[in-house]
């Protein structure tokens, strides 16, 4: 795991990527087949762990630059972007990165995906009211945790505002099945005796599954002991499209985007 300092350094590197050279706007639409969801997700993980502290989850953390809007200051081709991610920009705050070329390539894939999915503006309400909903009516902490409070079954939200775009959070709240990341896949196992186990997939091999079940138990299951097992295509998270009003959703979003990590 990278230290926070290292992450900031890397993030700074990507900031510099955007600061130096003349402005350029990418085409609004890129051919959709160049990168696969796997590339994009790998790149997103790297971006969010290393770059978003400076660039922001929206890719607009640097003045004059907006990844989601397709505004880059350097490079128009994937290759130029990749070289900038790898080599940094001498004389600026952006040092060379320690990414492999392959890793840098996935970051480019993610930046391209951001440009393809320019986010509509997301309404943000009152963060304090949002926190009350998360901890109360929304019952979010029955699955998620914030700063150590809540459940570990679902994704930890403590840094969610630093790593996820508001539009992504909005989509997760209203349409949780739209995108399920590999780290958040749910597996359902029906054992030979009919017992059903559901949990987050942690690891797998040809013969076994490792999961964190809904009771926060770490389980390792022999596939041969299961009648069936299936990685679910749907999220266990309910949609809040109807459960919350529009203003309540805006409040929750306003709260989530403030979650940038544990207070030091």
């Amino acid at each position, binding site marked *: 795991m990278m230290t926070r300092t290292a992450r900031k350094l890397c993030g700074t590197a990507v900031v510099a990527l955007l600061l130096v050279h003349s402005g350029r706007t990418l085409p609004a639409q*890129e*051919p959709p*087949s*160049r*990168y*696969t969801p*796997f*590339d994009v997700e*790998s*790149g997103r993980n790297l971006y969010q762990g290393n770059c978003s502290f400076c660039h922001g989850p929206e890719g607009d953390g640097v003045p004059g630059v907006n990844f989601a809007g397709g505004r880059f200051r350097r490079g128009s*081709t*994937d*290759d*130029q972007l*990749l*070289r900038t991610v790898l080599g940094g920009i001498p004389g600026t705050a952006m040092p060379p990165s320690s990414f*492999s*070329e*392959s890793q840098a*390539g*996935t970051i*480019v*894939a993610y930046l391209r995906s951001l440009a393809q999915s320019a986010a509509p503006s997301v309404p943000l309400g009152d963060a304090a009211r949002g926190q009350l909903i998360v901890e109360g009516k929304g019952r979010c902490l029955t699955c998620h945790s914030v700063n150590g409070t809540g459940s570990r079954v679902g994704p930890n939200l403590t840094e969610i505002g630093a790593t996820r775009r508001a539009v992504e959070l909005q989509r997760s709240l209203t349409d949780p099945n739209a995108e399920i990341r*590999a*780290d958040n*896949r749910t597996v359902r196992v029906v054992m030979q005796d009919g017992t059903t186990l559901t949990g987050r*997939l*942690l*690891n*797998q*091999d*040809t*013969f076994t599954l490792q999961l964190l079940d809904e009771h926060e138990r770490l389980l390792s299951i022999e596939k041969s002991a299961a009648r069936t097992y299936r*990685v679910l295509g749907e999220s266990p998270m309910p949609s809040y499209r109807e459960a919350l009003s529009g203003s309540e959703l805006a409040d929750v979003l306003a709260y989530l985007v403030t979650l940038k990590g544990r207070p030091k």
Partner: protein
Amino acid sequence: MTPRRSPDVPWHRWERRLRVLVLAAVPVCAASVMHGQVLFERIARSAEEPQNWLTYSGGLMGQRFSRLAAVTPTNVKNLELQWVFQSRSLEKFEATPLVVNGTMYTVQPPNDVVALDASTGRVFWVYQYAPSPLARPCCGRVNRGLAILGDSLFMATIDGHVIALDAKNGGLVWNAVLAKPEAGYSFTVAPLVINDVVIVGVAGAEYGVRGFLSALDARTGQERWRFFTIAGEGDPGRTSWAGDSWKTGGGSVWVTGSYDADLNLTYWGIGNPGPDWNGDERQGDNLYTDSVVALDARTGALKWYFQFTPHDVFDYDSVQVPVLADITWRGRPRKVLLLANRNGFFYVLDRTTGEFLLGKPFVKTTWTTGLDEKGRPMKVLELGADGTLAFPGVQGGTNWFSPSYSPGTGLFYIPSWVDTYATFTKRPVEYREGQRFTGALPAMSVRLLTPGPLVNRRLPEEGHGAIQAFDPETGDKKWEFAMTDVTDSGVLTTASGLLFSGGREGYFFALDARTGALLWKASLGGQVSNGPITYAVGGRQFVAVVGGNALFSYALRQ
């Protein structure tokens, strides 16, 4: 030569015949143990002494097949661990051991030779080699094993040397310097002995070397012949390179070839052109990269070649072991060469002439629309400055890890990467001696092999590994054993109808070679990244494989 199973002989009778053959061979083998020396005649007939493992692939035909049959589909469940050898290196442990008369020889990465008791794992001696700090192998400081002739062991090193050691005590016999490590040349291949020469191939295409195969006098280390894998001046293939691009054309050889004594031809798979992912400056087919070449073993003269991926921009090395088999082809006996290529196609060639007989994809392939009647790819994807998605990925549908051909089942077994892909981006690249000369490493759907435990949450459609069995005559897949993660393990088959292999998940397992059914498995706690072997000591059969940084040897419970 290994026996062929007549299709009208039932398997159980064939198995019984083989057991009789093995038992009959034991006194003969015992006699050869007495004098100990590994004469080339023994290597050429290695199938007749299956208690030993005398070459990288177990025999000159490259089949990684053993006549040992004490471990059977019925009793394989009784295999238990006998000993473990812990390597002192954390580098990838890719060496296939040799076993000679109860002594095992292997290479602890990068270039330490170890002799140990094959029945207990106790070490006799270690020869420590300190490679030059100028060595820069592209993809790990690895070594794939040794060769033996007489009382000498041969190892090629990552800093461009080939050395001979006394097999009794590890003493240095000779040390030949063949290539400059500072220019990117390195050896990772296990040498192949043919008659009285030691053949090695050089790696370094990722640094723009001009690849070659070299045959050295086994007694002195003097070079007898050299074959350049990149066609230069005076070679008819020279016109397949634009301008001077041949001078930095790559063409590494990093996996051991095979040999047909009747034809006196040695077959080697040749690696990718340089630079890997940008072909702009090397217009043309770029011979003999991504080819298999058939060379006169005495002179090194090229008899024929077959190029699988002309003008490759995907890094589809063709270094896979060229497996030789004598099969029935269209109703008549035929000497063929089987090669499951990194480009995702399985090929059958006539090994006398190089004629293309069959080529079929064994995994998803999108880099080409298919092969024409001569086996040449038809329309091929072009790379640009923006990414191009292609199946199979840069690691290929298979790679360096050994396939196997079983004369018993008549099937060819491929350790495969199924549904893996990569995004290739063309990037300007300039040659500087000793510097990387590749272009942009593609974004991959599956990671390169790295030490340590891996977490895998991929869905099957996002890429996985498999052992696949193919009928060479039809190219039809007979069965597939799917794994959740990919594999870097070779395959071993035995006369009793067993198949041994492993994978990144750290399992070492045995399958029924006829059906693919899982018969036994053991968790080694580390990724399997070499090819299993089998041998016998005192009549007891062992099966050995590397998992992580250790070598494990199994035998039936006594």
